[in-house]
């Protein structure tokens, strides 16, 4: 059988065991009680039989001795009363005296304690009783004394019934109490496992250092926890190795690239120089972006990180406006009259906005302006009047190395992937919309912070 939970399994098997124990206990107690009852009954009736013997009077008629019971006892043994019956048998087992009107013996068996069934004027009755031998005038007689146990005056079996009910009312609550404790004990014992699940749940690529704590853990589960933690350890190592590989590789490329660049700069042939430098710079840009991407993969934003969007935008403009002028384009900043505090890390938001603006500048036509628009609700939008982005490309543009036009120079294909990652770190939504009559509006919706709490 399959069980959904450990708790179910324990409760179920425990209930079964307890029920079995209760059953065995009841049966055993009943048997024991019955035994006690029989011996008590035998002793009582034995005494009564002996008493009866005292009332047997010898009636000497002719040669045969006759036994007769005292008249004072006749009511007690009458068929009308129906509780006690007696018979006196001679040594051949023939009844010489009987309280029954038909004069038959009470029991067919001569065992010391026995049972029998009688026909009386009041109907058939079941009796239990004793055979007691006595000696009278050299003759051995057997006194049979039976009692109808279902008679209303007999309280022995009532005791049995009461006892069974008592057992029921004691055992059942006891079982329930034990099961209740089971439940409590198990809940308590399983609490560390629930905590462990929570801890494991929190381990992600953003929180690689998390582990399951061994504290309070039941000793039986500790090996599993240790094994799981070792597995997490191996995963973390592998993840970090993979992560540092791209960053290491990019770093390693930088020195040879620096050599190449300075060699080109030192060329005397200026036309060659003008041709080669942009290629080297493009390569350098790609490496730079690769490193940025690798870096943002490892960063996180704390809940209390605050950045001024205006400040971020001004820095981006300061960096890119001169380059834009060189390329006969403009950058305009709107909505930057006062500070806009948002939840975020300044250097990351700077990178994201820089990439968005660089991207817009790449597609903006000559003599046009790329507009950075800030809103008090924490939204920063970059507007260009380029060709726009078709609807079916709007998802792909955030993929690594995706480029609409692979021949377009200057693009690493990583800029928007970095933007996406940074947006994710800030739980910010990126929105790509059409700029009318043509062009693109890329918006980043950041969480604004009340100025009072930010200052």
């Amino acid at each position: 059988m399959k069980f959904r939970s450990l708790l179910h399994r324990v409760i179920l098997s425990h209930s079964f065991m307890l029920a079995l124990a209760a059953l065995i206990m009841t049966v055993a107690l009943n048997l024991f009680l019955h035994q006690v009852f029989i011996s008590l009954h035998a002793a009582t009736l034995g005494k009564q039989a002996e008493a009866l013997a005292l009332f047997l009077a010898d009636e000497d008629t002719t040669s045969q001795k006759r036994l007769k019971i005292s008249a004072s006892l006749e009511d007690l043994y009458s068929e009308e009363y129906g509780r006690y019956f007696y018979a006196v048998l001679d040594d051949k087992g023939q009844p010489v005296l009987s309280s029954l009107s038909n004069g038959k013996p009470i029991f067919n068996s001569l065992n010391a304690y026995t049972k029998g069934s009688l026909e009386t004027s009041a109907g058939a009755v079941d009796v239990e009783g004793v055979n007691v031998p006595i000696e009278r005038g050299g003759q051995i007689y057997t006194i049979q004394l039976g009692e109808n146990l279902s008679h209303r005056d007999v309280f022995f079996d009532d005791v049995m019934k009461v006892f069974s009910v008592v057992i029921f009312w004691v055992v059942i609550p006891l079982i329930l109490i034990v099961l209740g404790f089971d439940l409590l004990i198990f809940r308590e014992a399983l609490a560390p496992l629930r905590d462990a699940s929570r801890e494991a749940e929190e381990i992600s690529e953003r929180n690689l250092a998390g582990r399951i704590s061994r504290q309070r853990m039941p000793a039986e589960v500790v090996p599993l926890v240790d094994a799981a933690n070792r597995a997490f350890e191996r995963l973390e190592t592998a993840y970090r190795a993979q992560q540092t590989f791209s960053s290491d590789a990019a770093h390693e490329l930088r020195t040879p690239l620096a050599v190449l660049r300075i060699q080109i700069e030192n060329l005397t042939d200026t036309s060659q120089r003008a041709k080669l430098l942009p290629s080297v710079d493009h390569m350098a840009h790609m490496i730079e972006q690769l490193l940025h991407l690798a870096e943002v993969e490892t960063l996180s934003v704390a809940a209390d990180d605050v950045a001024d969007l205006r400040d971020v935008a001004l820095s981006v403009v300061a960096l890119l406006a001169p380059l834009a002028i060189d390329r006969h384009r403009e950058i305009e900043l709107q909505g930057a009259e006062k500070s806009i505090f948002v939840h975020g890390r300044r250097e990351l938001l700077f990178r994201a906005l820089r990439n968005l603006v660089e991207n817009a500048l790449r597609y903006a036509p000559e003599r046009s302006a790329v507009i950075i628009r800030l809103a008090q609700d924490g939204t920063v939008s970059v507007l260009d009047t380029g060709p726009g982005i078709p609807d079916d490309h709007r998802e792909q543009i955030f993929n690594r190395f995706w480029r609409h036009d692979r021949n377009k120079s200057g693009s690493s294909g990583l800029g928007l992937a970095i933007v996406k990652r940074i947006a994710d770190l800030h739980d910010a939504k990126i929105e790509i919309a059409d700029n009318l009559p043509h062009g693109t509006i890329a918006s980043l919706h950041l969480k604004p912070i009340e100025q009072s709490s930010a200052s």
Partner: protein
Amino acid sequence: MRILLVEDNEELAMELRKSLVSLGHLTSWASTIEEARKELASTQFEAAILDLGLPDGDGYELVREVRAAKSDLPLLILTARSTVQDRVTGLKSGADDYLTKPFAMEELVARLDVIVRRLNPPSEIILSLNNVQFNATHRQLLVDSRTVSLPVREMDLLESLLRRKGRVVPKEAIEERLFEEGRELGSNAIEVYVHRLRKHLAECGAQIEIHTIRGVGYCLKEQE
């Protein structure tokens, strides 16, 4: 000037030295921290260019040693490391500037000039761009070597822009420079002066251009 170049990549070091020498700088090359220590002990340098990843240690070691010896030798770090954390560490270590590989020679020289000049301010500040030369010490403007006279505010404005030529000068910075604090300004006061300055510059044949960065400020560039 005399420059110490600490770089373990021989090819890069040779090319760099060639460029620096061609610009008139005496350049000594050290490929390890140990060699650099010897050079520093025996020669008086005016600046040092340091690579971070060296065979016998980290370039920061050298930065700390130099600063511990109470030397204000201008130090420019040249590195392949570029994370935010690296930059912060680099500037906190006591280095004067931080440049990532690969770099343009022009930028290296410009930054070197800045950190050296910070230590020995020249007696006369000459700001120049294309055919325009402005002597900030004597407040004299030359266009094609001819003296040009400008009203005070326009002159101040030009100086602000020339001091940060090629870079974005925020409007607020110009306001602070041109007007005393607390003065009530018309919303387009700066625009008016920029407009006037542009006219003056055009009249005297200055080959420089003031670009408007809307919402931010201005940027002075060579005319194309």
